[in-house]
């Protein structure tokens, strides 16, 4: 009997290729019973070591046995040019072997390139920033990054979102008037100043909508405040004289 030493195989095809290489078999003319026998012994061994045999190996075992049976069956004289039952498996083995070779090539490319290093520390470089319009914001962000982010967002979603629905009597129209009044009293302001005293989230939201609505109506204009997460608001329509005086 043979003692079999186990190592990792990339899958059933890899194991078959191993048998073929080790025994110097002709891949185009596989001795199917012998290979099937060895394959089953390997599975048996895995089982005896209490290793769960991966599904792919079991499927392959079934395929091998099926081919073996078909090889034993007498050929149907009427069926013209029936394909060798092994043909499909041989095709797969050769195809896999081909990519396995390329994987080795990739491995040596990787090895070669591992010796090459790029500059990675740029803090010492003096840079003078230049204003330009921007593009390339999404460079290097792939669809995978996007879906990974989606999953992460869902995973981190607050377990219970308590929506206390108490009806607040706040409408967009009201807040539009509020914004215009505020501007009239305080002059140009910012969004944060506008909502500073508000406690209910919904009121803030409605106010923001009101601001957007007013922007759309060209009653006010918005601008980004440099360096801050805030938006500057200034009136576009003429306001009551007292507003001008107040600033």
């Amino acid at each position: 009997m043979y003692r079999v030493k186990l190592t990792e195989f990339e899958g059933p095809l890899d194991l078959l290729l191993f048998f073929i290489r080790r025994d110097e078999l002709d891949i185009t003319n596989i001795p199917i019973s012998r290979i099937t026998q060895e394959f089953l012994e390997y599975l048996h061994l895995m089982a005896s070591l209490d290793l769960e045999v991966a599904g792919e190996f079991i499927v392959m075992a079934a395929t091998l046995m099926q081919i073996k049976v078909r090889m034993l069956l007498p050929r149907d004289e009427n069926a013209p040019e029936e394909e060798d039952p092994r043909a499909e498996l041989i095709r797969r083995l050769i195809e896999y072997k081909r990519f396995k070779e390329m994987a080795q090539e990739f491995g040596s490319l990787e090895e070669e390139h591992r010796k090459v290093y790029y500059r990675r520390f740029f803090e010492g470089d003096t840079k003078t920033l230049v204003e330009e319009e921007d593009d390339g914001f999404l460079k290097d962000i792939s669809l995978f990054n996007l879906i990974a982010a989606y999953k992460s967002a869902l995973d981190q979603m607050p377990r219970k979102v308590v929506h206390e629905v108490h009806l607040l009597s706040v409408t967009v129209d009201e807040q539009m008037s509020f914004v215009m009044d505020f501007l009239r009293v305080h002059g140009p302001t910012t969004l944060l100043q506008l909502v500073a005293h508000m406690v209910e989230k919904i009121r803030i939201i409605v106010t923001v909508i009101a601001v957007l609505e007013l922007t759309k109506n060209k009653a006010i204009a918005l601008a980004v405040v440099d360096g801050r997460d805030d938006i500057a608001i200034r009136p576009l329509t003429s306001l009551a004289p007292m507003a001008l005086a107040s600033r």
Partner: protein
Amino acid sequence: MTPDLPPPPVSRQILDVLEALLFATDEPLSTGQLTELLEYLSEQDRPRPLNADTILSCIAYMNREYEVQGRTFRIKPIAGGYQFATLPEFGIWLGRLVRERSKRKLSVSALESLAVIAYKQPVTKPEIEAIRGVNADYVLRTLMERNLVTIVGRASTPGRPLLYGTTREFLKHFGLNDLADLPKPREIDELMAEAEYEVEKRMLRELEEKREAEEGKDEASGLHLVDGDE
């Protein structure tokens, strides 16, 4: 053509190793660290004496070389160590590079919001915030500025909140023909779940390593058939 330099304080090989080290490091290297790294040089190749002063004179020598050869970079003392840096007069050119670099990445939070909008659209800001648990004002603004997200209408719910959705630009970036091409939640789960087969493979590998350690013997690859009972 180039003015002659005095002879280097150490062998060329040492200068080369120093240059390569300073080039590839991801943080400034102190003279102490450099000394330590040079200790891997074989006994006879090592500079003598091998100390901070030797390193400093090498750095000074290399900088003279770069100057004479008209290179646009020098080795500069930074944060207690030494590092390559381009000369300040090229700062304006590098600024253009850096701007591009800083714009490159979407923040994690922007990406998450973008993902939520992509999958849940049309979606209101409160809905985005409910999923992400944080205020979405800033990211929404950023995403809209980048033309990845746009307002697509208003919900008919009370307060008629704005509805957000993704743009054509978004589809273009991710190589999607339409929104139906986005990976489905089921596909995402498939991608994110560890295949069970891998668990087994890892077990097998561990077992193998343990056995090899026990037997204390080396082995090439594959199934080894050993003539057992004789």
